[in-house]
């Protein structure tokens, strides 16, 4: 490939900023590696509070990824396969959490589902309290991660086109059968990378979580929150846990690449 493809020359000046940018991203990771207290590493990442935070993070991120699939797949299907008035505006609104500061998302969730929120009193009557619970963590994560799945899957569906679906329908397949046997298999790579991106976004969620769910050990204190707290009292633990999250992130990017790119 490298030898066979003829290339137009690159401007020489492009290399310097390109290398500087790459260093800017990689250097902090190196700094982290250098700073790690390797002799106590295992002890630091297996402390009670660290394990509780890791377990809570994995549990809530998995749940919110599942919720993203449950809601995001039908959302992508409707956006990709139907035309209606205001579709463009609706798509922009749905993708808003991508660009919104997470802490703003947390405030918005609080004033929707919190005790004094839009639905709070109704939920209160039903005996349901969401804010500052594990449920709130999952909701905060789903809120910020859902657009990743919708965006990635809708793109995959538009690229796949609907010609195979037309053929399937004329062969007698009902819409649900067409979706299950034709649409989903064709967009599977997009679905997998969308789900992985959602999981990664959920795992790293901080701002919306701390605003809407607070920081209770074992209940709402996920790994990013634990790192933020430890930074004050035990910097070595914070660094060790940070490295743990970096490893998980590297793993996720590897999986997403395996599932055909980042969408």
């Amino acid at each position: 490939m490298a030898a066979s493809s003829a290339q137009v020359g690159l401007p020489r000046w492009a290399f310097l900023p390109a290398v500087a940018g790459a260093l800017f991203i990689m250097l902090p990771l190196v700094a982290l590696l250098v700073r790690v207290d390797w002799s106590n590493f295992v002890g630091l990442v297996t402390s009670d509070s660290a394990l509780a935070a890791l377990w809570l993070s994995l549990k809530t991120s998995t749940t919110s990824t599942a919720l993203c699939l449950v809601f995001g797949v039908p959302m992508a299907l409707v956006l990709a396969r139907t035309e209606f008035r205001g579709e463009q505006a609706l798509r922009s609104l749905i993708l808003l959490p991508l660009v919104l500061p997470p802490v703003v998302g947390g405030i918005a969730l609080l004033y929707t589902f919190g005790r004094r929120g839009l639905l709070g009193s109704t939920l209160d009557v039903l005996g349901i309290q969401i804010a500052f619970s594990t449920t709130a963590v999952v909701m905060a994560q789903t809120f910020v991660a859902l657009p990743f799945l919708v965006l990635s899957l809708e793109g995959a569906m538009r690229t796949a086109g609907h010609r195979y679906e037309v053929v399937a329908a004329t062969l007698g397949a009902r819409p649900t059968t067409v979706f299950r046997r034709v649409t989903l298999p064709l967009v599977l790579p997009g679905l997998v990378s969308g789900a992985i991106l959602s999981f990664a976004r959920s795992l790293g969620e901080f701002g919306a979580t701390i605003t809407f769910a607070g920081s209770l050990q074992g209940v709402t204190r996920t790994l990013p929150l634990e790192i933020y707290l430890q930074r004050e009292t035990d910097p070595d633990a914070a660094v060790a846990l940070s490295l743990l999250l970096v490893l998980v992130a590297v793993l996720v990017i590897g999986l997403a690449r395996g599932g055909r790119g980042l969408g």
Partner: protein
Amino acid sequence: MSLELSAQVTDREFDLDLSVPTGQVVALIGPNGAGKSTTLSVISGLLRPDRGHAILDGQTLFDLKAPGSASVWTPPHARGVALLAQEPLLFPHLSALDNVAFGPRSTGQSKQDSRNSGLRWLDEVDAREFADRKPAQLSGGQAQRIAVARALAAEPSLLLLDEPMAALDVAVAPALRQMLGRVLTGRTALLVTHDALDALLLADRVVVLEDGRIVEDGATGQVLSRPRSAFAARIAGLNMIRGNRVEGGLRTDDGVLVSGRVDATLDQTSSTEAIAVFRPSAVSIFEQPPGGSPQDVFDVVITELEPQGDRIRVRTGQLNADVTPAAVAQLGLTPGQRVSFVVKANEVDIYPV
């Protein structure tokens, strides 16, 4: 039991009434944009006409009346209408066999039964050896064969074929045409084509569409040997001239007299118009028309020269002539030149409109 169709699509100026008896294969021909694809889309349920109704084997496909009154709309999957397109469009993630078994499986057959009928239909198109291959491992001709098997395996009441040979290599089209001829026998089918050979070998009847309307409809042999529309004449490779009946032939609006073999039916009809057709290869080209045997002479201006097998096709506005390269060289023919096309009267067929 048959197809009865009447449909109007206002913004495409499409207004069609068509009925196809069971077991008949109808070739739909016409210029681009004439409404051939619209016809297939309307019947298969991919396009909702503004008004009209369609009944297939007693089942109402749609019945759309004026706005406000009750209408019937059967979704595509429940119509019993299978569509075979130019491209095979085999599902890329399924093996050839699973592609063919898709229809039976989707309409409720068990996995085993649908695979069995898949194998039976693969046999029918001589493609059983490809059963386990993925579409990416098949050639264009093989894939289209399997697409035919897949469409037939759904056991449609009506099969729609949209130029099924158009995307194939010239080398493999004959084999597929022959196979289609075999499996289409006795089926009800609509075949969109641009090819006289497809119509001759596959269709019992030819319907010519122009501007969203039927302009000609008849038995295949009749339409191709005695076309009544300009498009059918072009597909049949014939020169066609219209004019008013006169003794022994017809006279065009430009006053040219065309004599020829006059069909006996011309005297039995009340029509004052007649059509004359002749083959481009029956035309000789002269700078000055010679006298002699009874002949028709047309003064024309050459617009184009192009190769046509071992002949050169000389095009003018309305007529074509196929002559030898030697004749072209001898006369020094070039576009823009004024010449005479001469046809012996006994090469010209004249019949009523």
